[in-house]
């Protein structure tokens, strides 16, 4: 089924819905080999953790699964904060939403143009993690 297990040093899942988190983790299992999968309830928690890792020289996540609608700090606000950070590596950010509001899609397009990181837009439901969700090399080909 899966051709290759991708080895990933660190993954962030930012979502306040436990079912989605469960799903993502389950889907990650067959495609990615990662010992460091961290779950966050909202953008603020994830941002704080990221800043902490940057300070302490810890692993910066290679892949982030980011929900849009969350309390305290939502996906968009988190994205704004990330863009301002000085990061050497590009992060693959998969925005996950059940919203079909065209405004969200438009926002994503605008953000993609501005953002140095790789920005994917995934509409729920998700049944499978694609290779492109994990690897920027595949995007180029």
């Amino acid at each position, binding site marked *: 089924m899966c051709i290759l297990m991708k080895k990933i040093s660190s993954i962030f899942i930012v979502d306040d819905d436990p*079912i*989605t988190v469960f*799903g993502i983790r389950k889907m990650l299992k067959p495609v990615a080999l990662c010992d460091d999968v961290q779950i966050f309830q909202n953008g603020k928690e994830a941002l704080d953790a990221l800043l902490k890792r940057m300070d302490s020289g810890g692993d910066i996540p290679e892949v982030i699964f980011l929900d849009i609608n969350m309390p305290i700090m939502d996906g968009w606000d988190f994205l704004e904060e990330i863009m301002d950070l000085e990061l050497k590596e590009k992060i693959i950010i998969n925005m996950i939403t*059940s919203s079909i509001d065209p405004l969200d899609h438009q926002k994503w397009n605008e953000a993609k143009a501005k953002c140095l990181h790789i920005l994917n837009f995934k509409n729920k*439901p*998700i049944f499978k993690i694609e290779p492109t969700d994990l690897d920027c090399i595949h995007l180029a080909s």
Partner: protein
Amino acid sequence: MKAVERIAQHYLLKQLPTATALVGVDGILVDASDSWLHTFGLCSKDAIGILVYDLFMGYNTDCGKSLRECLGKSTAQTCRFKKGDGSSEVWYENTFTPWYDERENLIGSIIQAQNITEEIKKEKELNRMINLLSTKSEVAKVGCWEYNINTEQLFWCDETKKIHKVPASYTPNVNEAISFYKQGYSRNKISMLFHKAMEKGIPFNEKLVIITDNGEERWVRVSGKPIEQNGEVVKLFGTFQDIHEQVLSELQTKQSQQLLTTLIDNIPMNVFIKDTDSRKILVNKAECDYLGKSHEELIGTTDFDTFDKESAKISVHEDLEVMRTQKPMIGKETLCVKKNGETTHFLTSKIPLFDLDGKVNGLIGISMDITGLKKKEDQMRNLINVTSLQNKKLINFAHIVSHNLRSHSANFSMLLKFLANEEDETEKERIVGMLSNASNNLMETLEDLNQIVDINTNVNLEKKPINLHQNITKIQKNLSAFLEKHKLEVENNVPENLEIQSIPAYLDSIILNLMTNAVKYRSLDRKLTIVLSAKKHGRGTIFSFSDNGLGIDLEKYGNKLFGMYKTFHNNKEARGLGLYIIKNQIEAMGGSITVSSEVDKGTTFNVYFNEEDK
């Protein structure tokens, strides 16, 4: 004897007052009265014996007969003689009577002369007058008539006959004359007038229609005046004039005037004409009705007399501009404020009015009252605003619904797919447990949505007057356990007699939500105090709800604060629904809610109760 007789005769003759002369058949003057001789400038001793032909040398006759033919005839002759010309002319009428001797032998003529210069002058004047009169009556088409009551004779002058189109030889009588008048009104009227003039001596002057001899209908003016003698009417005299053309053009003018008046008075617009000083010189009925004044009261007034100063200034300025530039002002929306403050919207046109020389001498104004239309337009605009607002809310709501429902259904799909592919039994059980969680979440979401829909659909719930102070106290009592547990202090500064218009259930929900909200986001560093106050604001009431809790960064979250499922604190109890619900409830009652806050100081919500539906 003979001589004596002759002398006696001579003296007798000499003294006759009437100019008299005796002339023999041979034409020799035998004797004459001094008065006769005087007319020739002679005295008796020079004159006797001369030939009368010589005396009459400078005279002309007007009858064509010569003096010779008149003298010595056995029948009496009359002849007029004229001497001189123009203003110095003198006329004599000479009567030649045969002169016989005792034996009836014709021996000459007795000439009697009479100075008739005055009579001739009068005769000439009379002729002139008659001429003048007939010319005048011909030119003016004024004829005359005369009726002699005794002889029952009716006289028509030539002009009168001409007007009747009868030949000059026609002799009228009263019956025929009356039958010339058109049957009906004209004939009845003239019969009556003629009768009244005869019987009671009442003069008349009337416009009537005759049918001429050749069958043509014509308007005439006929007048009659009784002439009395010894207190009795003996004659009627009158004029008769053809006024057909005048009447027709008068009729036409009247008709077009009538048309114009009817049009101007019945047009559902205000029409007025102003002079160069902006004074009204014509107003129609609509304008009178609008200003509540009579036609007479309005003539001569300016807008300063009827409108307030500002309105009048604008209007008069327009008037003067239109007359100065000579360019009409068409269909301009104007606002007129009457002295009593009543305002009317008009669609006004002002058109310069030119006199026959092309000079501006005023303007015509036409205004249509569009107040009703304006009101409808405003209503419509309001409706559009409300509708677009509702629409926005609906779209927003639809997105919320779709998002919330979709997130659950997406979870279902995902979990079911897992379940289908899962072989491990414990993992299967775990997935089923999650499915049941997802189902519970969906139910909860549906209930939330239902609540929102209820608020937005039950717009017809009735507002009631509620004492705000008492209502707060009641909720405090219901929440007493909750409030005590959190050591909450409530300061109810709402005036005790203040009443607001609200849907009771919504007011409870608003206060309850704000209170639980304050408790949820209280600061753990200090005792929570809530201050409630209210005051009248215009036609509504502002209800202020302040706490000393955590506060919120409005710059960051201000536009999301009242959104659905928006939470801003790390609080497990937060569901992000309370503020969304009360915002919907307040808006459903026509009010609004605003917020001001400072982080770690507190938050104040201001609820505006709009109390229009009293």
